């Protein structure tokens, strides 16, 4: 099954059994249904599915308003940058509501447009940047396993959060992958245990990390593999303990942000671990180059990383 089909299926299973739930957004029940994200979604008893006018600021505020009034909702958006029009709500209104524990749920699910250069707006499809404006809990979906954990745990749970799905992964076939452990918040996923290196993936870079893991294995390096699916503060303890053991850390972060979550882990690792190698794979975009056409795919020289670790 393809990534987007699986995400749609998981969301559909959850919304169909949730009573008095409002699903809303532009074209969510028309046309391509946001490229399949909202295809054939149903709600439980007393719920509503609303194709809305193009009023994004109001969508963000209305979701928080419904939450304030005890009604749960999910807002779907075709592109992350649409939500820029609702930033006031995400920060100011959420700050009002978060003072008390809300009984209802509000989740925004949007597509992170990372499938290639689509215009100037592509430069601002940075998941972490949006979440960090008000420390909003945010989760990226990168594979079958994290999709299950994140959607089943958070989609309709009390509180507010954002879930980002990757456009570049929409057509990818999903394969089975097991986890060693997942933390309670579903922000840190531990997939592989190894002794030769620690790989930590950020934003939507898990597929690169999995490839690196396989390439290193071919070279005789058994690596641990983690994915950090959130930008809200994370306890690095599990990764740090692993790095202390392997003495080698490789971070991969495919965000275009200037404020990368992987840098926080690197600082923590330098403070707490004696390392032979610390390798950061991230974008190197200087000056205004971030504005012009940039490949969304990271170009990673896996051989070079293996060489460094073996050297």
């Amino acid at each position, binding site marked *: 099954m393809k990534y987007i089909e699986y995400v749609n299926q998981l969301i559909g299973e959850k919304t169909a059994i949730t009573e*008095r739930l*409002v699903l809303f957004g532009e074209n969510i029940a028309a046309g391509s249904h946001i490229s399949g994200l909202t295809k054939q979604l149903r709600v439980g008893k*007393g*719920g*509503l599915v*609303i194709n*809305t*006018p193009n*009023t994004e*600021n*109001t*969508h*963000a*505020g*209305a*979701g*928080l*308003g*419904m*939450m*304030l*009034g*005890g*009604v749960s*909702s999910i807002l779907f958006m075709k592109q992350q940058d649409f939500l820029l029009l609702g930033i*006031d*709500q995400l920060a*100011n*209104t959420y700050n*009002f509501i978060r*003072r008390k524990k809300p009984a209802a749920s509000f989740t925004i699910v949007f597509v992170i447009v990372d499938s290639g250069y689509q215009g100037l707006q592509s430069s601002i499809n940075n998941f972490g940047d949006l979440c960090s404006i008000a420390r909003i809990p945010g989760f990226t979906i990168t594979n079958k396993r994290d999709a299950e954990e994140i959607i089943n745990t958070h989609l309709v749970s009390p509180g507010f959060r954002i879930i980002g799905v990757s456009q570049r992964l929409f057509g990818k076939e999903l394969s089975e992958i097991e986890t060693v452990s997942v933390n309670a918040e579903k922000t840190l996923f531990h997939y592989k245990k190894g002794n030769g290196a620690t790989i930590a993936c950020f934003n939507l870079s898990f597929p690169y990390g999995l490839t690196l893991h396989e390439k290193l294995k071919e070279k005789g390096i058994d690596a641990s593999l983690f994915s950090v699916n959130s930008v809200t503060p994370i306890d690095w303890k599990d990764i740090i303990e692993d790095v202390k053991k392997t003495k080698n850390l490789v971070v991969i972060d495919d965000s275009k942000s200037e404020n990368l979550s992987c840098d926080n882990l690197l600082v923590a690792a330098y403070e707490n671990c004696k390392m032979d190698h610390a390798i950061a794979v991230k974008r190197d975009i200087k000056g205004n180059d971030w504005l012009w056409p940039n490949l969304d795919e990271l170009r990673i020289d896996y051989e070079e990383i293996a060489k460094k670790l073996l050297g």
Partner: protein
Amino acid sequence: MEHKQNIAIAKEILRLRLSQMLINEKYKAGLFKIPLHIAMGHEAIAVAVDAAMEENDLLVCSHRNMHYNLARTKALKPILDEYFLKKEGLAGAELGSMNLANEKKNIVYTSSILGNNLPVATGLALGHKVKGVNGLVIVQTGDGAMEEGAFYESLLFMKSNSLAALIIVENNEWSMHTRIHERRSPIDLSKFSESLGAKYEKLYENDPYKYTERIKEIREYALKNKTPVVAEVDLDTLGGWYVDVPGSTEKRFIHPHSGPLPKTELAEWPELEHSANDPVFVLHTYFSSDELKAMAQEILKNIKKEIGEV
């Protein structure tokens, strides 16, 4: 209308005015660390909304919310304590003035950001629809905030989804220190509202009795027809003053935005303007001067007792 009800509404107008005058005295003395937006001149609509609200109605306010919080809370001390950022304040010192809400009295949300509260009110009205609650969402905004895109968006969303709501536009003609004609072209709010299919009402001359009856009628209309209604309320924010202009014989008018009103003094008879601009003056339509002054004296005594100043 019953005479007893008449007295209650008049007393509320006087209580709101005298409470704000007491706040202003402390403000002038420099006792607050946070900015306050005094709303003298806005009392009639706040008292009318409070009188018209039913159990399931929700009120959403803007940065200038003092009149609504006083009207709904029925007391000065918890509000004053909040302004002093005391733990015993109305919101435990978490909200201060510009975001002050009172959930127990159905002021469920207040925003300091122009236009921010309209989308939230939209969500609350949608929540009422989903839950099948027969209650009105009332949102207070102004002639400045209605310039924001959120005003158009929210009204469109409300109408598109058949949501019962009352949008009160307090039109004092000013946005901070700029009058409407100094900052924008005129907006015909009647045509604007009707173009989206929303009912429009105009309220003017500060009569709290007429306002109360009208708001009750609008409330019934909005709930019955499942529609938003825009009520534009013409009013003056009282307490403005003139300052000298260097090199000129003319004086410049300072319109109250936030900050203390330096020329406004606490008085047992709290009328600020001898005209329909002042809701306190308008009370003379229903009561004699002696009756009103006796009421005001008693109310001032009670408020001072409440805040420990007797």
